[in-house]
């Protein structure tokens, strides 16, 4: 965890905006603009006065360094902070400072020169009740302000701001040597004699300060070459340096601020014309002031807040998220120790977008993954969050779904006969394609075999669910088992259909050569088109690359498609393939060569996860939907995905979407508008429910073995000798709660075996429950014999403790 904490040190969330670091007064621009924007001019004036000391003078003379720093100038014109400040000063009626009751301090400070720097320093020190003596060679305050402004204005402002202060003014008194001040018991001296003035030898020091005879000497302002407003700012800052010396005996010289490192979120910079003052004197009215302040985008690095789904959903800054994660993962026994981020940790999609976009390269995703591991190690991870997916993985890797086969001899007879019986490629479809669309696995494998007969298949899960669940030990076992299977197949190249599996392999099994299925398909089509073989041609109605089924394509259908115009689709790039330019390009080429037009949508660069990644759907279903809906909103065009999970998520939300393989498979068969984009028109109807997904996997294994190896796999024995009647609405509820028919049977089975169920005479139904790992499933059903009509199901995670130990009389434990 420590290494992640370190990366947060570079977070620039609190970095001051560019205008504020350019401003010598350090004006709190956020605070000022916020007050102006809501029309609180008095409040804004106070903020301004506290920063600049003499608002009437600065508002008129400030050269506005902020303008050059404002990022708005890249799209239109910089925010006219100078005009806003000027208007603010004009709009406020009560400018008198507050008289604070501060105890008088003993230290005495001499200030030589009553110009802007000297005045600024005197103002600050005197307001803290230091004893300030100002020596001025002339007979009036103002110094270099004379000639720049009418004395009426600057003298009035100086008089006003210093009204409540006690300052010992010594006019017409030129100080030429340090000795002249020796008699007085000053603790510090500020030399602000103005341009070309006496520097008392301080300008040779670097910086211009020194301790001489137990007295600190500082030089600044016009003397060091600053123009009047900057000199005033330095005078104010010098008061801080003098105070540091008085309190700590250390010499510090005011530093100029480092330029802001903040990164501006470009989408905020929409061109908005600068507000022009309508009055003759060029001063804004209150409305104009508010409008101009509204152009300020309050520069703050918030790329994570707009790009990371997790930060957006929780409406939280990463620093806050960091603190919550740390508090949650600190090992502790007590219930009093707060663990506020348990759900948050299990909500991240692991899309990797945060760390990619963050200018400080903070790796929040990895930190969250590490937090999951910690929760798992501490046994504080709510098991229900990942239970379903771990069981799903176990099934996919189990005897009824997993296949690990070298190239089928029948297909590669000549290769094997030549003694080169080596599997060159192995197709790795991933575990979910076989569950959701088993035909696509068969289709893709046939295609691959046609291209390279020495292609085997490995049908199983890549193990990413255990990684996402934070179970590191189990994950290492998965990796080892994948490596062992790969070796057993003769260390072939793996042809990956799922980008998430591919990312997993790249990260954890770097020795395995990989290629994506889509690149293989494109390469084959390229070769075929060079050779002149008809492939899926320039039009959508072109013959398919498989060629065999193209015969059925009638000319009428082709014309129908031609009339309908090209289909416009949006390629939804999987988050795990964000940096896989080859795959992205391949998929686009496959679509392009089939006559599809590609739509880029409104935010092409913002594509993150579809909501499947990290499997947050149990821990935080609202988040998963929020993410899916955000992606859907990016483009009204139908999505074409190359990850089956993306497709399923979008279809589940009612968005027309299909997998690229569906398009490749259908092209050329019957080139009607419907067939060109099958899932696009049928929508979520093509989605199997969870029970069917498991059955599909078993069926797929049977079909694969039969078709390619002529092996007959035994039927999966039925564990329960009755059928369930479930209406479609209840099936939806089962899917939401991640309940399979098998789970229901397990509940009924136990209840009937032990006769532990509750009878409801009104409905003639039974209610029973059983603990299935981390969840308890309640089932209400009726019927017996061959049929059970399921009336309702519901689940909870709270455990019912020792149900049979009742009033101290029972001690049975027969409810598993």
């Amino acid at each position, binding site marked *: 965890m420590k290494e992640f904490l370190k990366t947060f040190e570079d977070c620039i969330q609190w970095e001051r905006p560019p205008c504020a670091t350019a401003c010598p007064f350090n004006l709190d621009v956020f605070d000022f603009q916020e007050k102006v924007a809501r029309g609180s001019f008095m409040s804004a004036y106070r903020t301004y006065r506290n920063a600049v000391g003499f608002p009437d003078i600065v508002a008129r003379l400030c050269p506005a360094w902020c303008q050059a720093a404002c990022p708005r100038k890249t799209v239109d014109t910089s925010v006219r902070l100078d005009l806003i400040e000027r208007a603010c000063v004009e709009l406020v009626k009560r400018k008198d400072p507050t008289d604070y009751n501060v105890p008088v301090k003993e230290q005495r400070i001499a200030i030589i020169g009553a110009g802007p720097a000297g005045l600024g320093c005197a103002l600050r020190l005197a307001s803290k009740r230091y004893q300030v003596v100002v020596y001025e060679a002339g007979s009036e305050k103002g110094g270099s302000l004379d000639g720049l402004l009418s004395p009426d204005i600057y003298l009035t402002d100086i008089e006003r701001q210093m009204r409540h202060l006690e300052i010992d003014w010594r006019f017409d008194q030129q100080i030429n040597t340090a000795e002249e001040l020796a008699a007085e018991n000053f603790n510090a001296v500020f030399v602000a004699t103005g341009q070309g003035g006496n520097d008392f030898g301080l300008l040779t020091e670097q910086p211009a300060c020194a301790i001489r005879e137990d007295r600190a000497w500082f030089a600044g302002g016009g003397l060091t070459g600053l123009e009047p407003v900057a000199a005033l700012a330095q005078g104010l800052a010098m008061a801080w340096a003098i105070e540091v010396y008085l309190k700590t005996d250390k010499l510090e010289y005011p530093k100029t601020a480092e330029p802001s490192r903040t990164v501006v979120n470009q989408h905020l910079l929409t061109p908005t014309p600068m507000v022009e003052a309508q009055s003759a004197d060029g001063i804004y009215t209150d409305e104009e002031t508010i409008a101009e302040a509204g152009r300020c985008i309050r520069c703050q690095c918030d790329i994570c807040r707009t790009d990371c789904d997790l930060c957006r959903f929780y409406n939280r800054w990463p620093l806050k998220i960091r603190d919550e994660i740390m508090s949650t993962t600190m090992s502790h026994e007590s*219930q009093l120790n*707060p*663990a*506020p*981020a*348990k*759900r948050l940790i299990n909500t991240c999609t692991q899309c990797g977008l945060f760390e990619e976009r963050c200018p400080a390269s903070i790796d929040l995703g990895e930190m969250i993954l590490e937090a999951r591991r910690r929760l798992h190690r501490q046994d*504080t991870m*709510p098991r229900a969050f990942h239970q379903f997916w771990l069981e799903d993985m176990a099934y996919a890797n189990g005897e009824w779904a997993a296949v690990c086969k070298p190239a089928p001899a029948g297909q590669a007879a000549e290769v094997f006969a030549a003694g080169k019986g080596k599997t060159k490629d192995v197709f790795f479809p991933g575990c979910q394609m076989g569950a959701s669309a088993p035909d696509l696995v068969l289709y893709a494998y046939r295609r691959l075999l046609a291209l390279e007969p020495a292609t085997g298949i490995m049908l199983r899960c890549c193990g990413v669910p255990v990684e996402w669940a934070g179970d590191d030990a189990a994950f290492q076992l998965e990796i080892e088992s994948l490596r062992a299977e790969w070796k057993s197949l003769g260390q072939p190249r793996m042809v990956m259909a799922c980008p998430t599996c591919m990312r997993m392999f790249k990260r954890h099994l770097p020795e395995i050569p990989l290629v994506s299925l889509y690149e293989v398909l494109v390469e084959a089509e390229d070769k075929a088109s060079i050779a002149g073989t008809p492939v899926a041609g320039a039009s959508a109605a072109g013959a398919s690359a498989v060629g065999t089924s193209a015969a059925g394509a009638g000319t009428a259908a082709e014309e129908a498609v031609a009339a309908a115009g090209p289909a416009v689709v949006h390629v939804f790039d999987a988050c795990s393939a964000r940096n896989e330019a080859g795959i992205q390009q391949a998929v686009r080429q496959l679509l392009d060569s089939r006559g599809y037009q590609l739509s880029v949508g409104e935010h092409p660069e913002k594509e993150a996860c579809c909501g499947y990644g990290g499997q947050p759907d149990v*821990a935080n279903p609202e988040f998963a939907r929020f993410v899916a809906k955000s992606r859907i909103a990016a483009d009204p065009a139908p999505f074409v995905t190359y990850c089956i999970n993306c497709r399923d998520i979008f279809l589940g939300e009612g968005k027309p979407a299909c997998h690229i393989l569906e398009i490749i498979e259908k092209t050329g068969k019957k080139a009607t508008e419907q067939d060109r984009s099958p899932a696009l028109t049928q929508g979520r109807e093509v989605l199997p429910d969870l029970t069917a997904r498991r059955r599909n996997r078993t069926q797929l294994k049977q079909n694969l073995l039969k078709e390619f190896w002529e092996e007959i796999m035994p039927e999966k024995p039925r564990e329960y000798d009755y059928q369930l009647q479930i209406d479609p609405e209840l099936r939806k509820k089962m899917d939401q709660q991640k309940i399979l028919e098998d789970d229901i049977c397990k509940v009924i089975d136990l209840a009937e075996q*032990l*006769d*532990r*169920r*509750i*009878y*409801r*005479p*009104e*409905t003639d139904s*039974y*209610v029973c*429950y059983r603990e299935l790992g981390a969840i308890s499933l*309640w089932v209400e059903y009726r019927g017996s014999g061959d049929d059970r009509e399921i009336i*309702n199901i*519901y*689940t*909870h*995670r*709270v*455990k*019912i*403790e*020792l*149900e*049979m*130990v*009742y*009033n101290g009389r*029972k001690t049975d434990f027969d409810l598993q």
Partner: protein
Amino acid sequence: MEEKPTLICSRCQLELEEAEAQFSYLNSSMRHKVKRCPSCGQVYLPESLVTGRMRELEDALEEK
């Protein structure tokens, strides 16, 4: 949601009665009055309880 359904323990053939039961989740345990069989102690939790207060409790404990 239910208008007081009759609930009979199929094993003991007794009507369920209100009684305390012990629950636990994520290292916390609590007691609550629910319908139980007066003889064998079989518990019945209605869906309204499960999706209502119990759900709230789970959510709270998962974030504690």
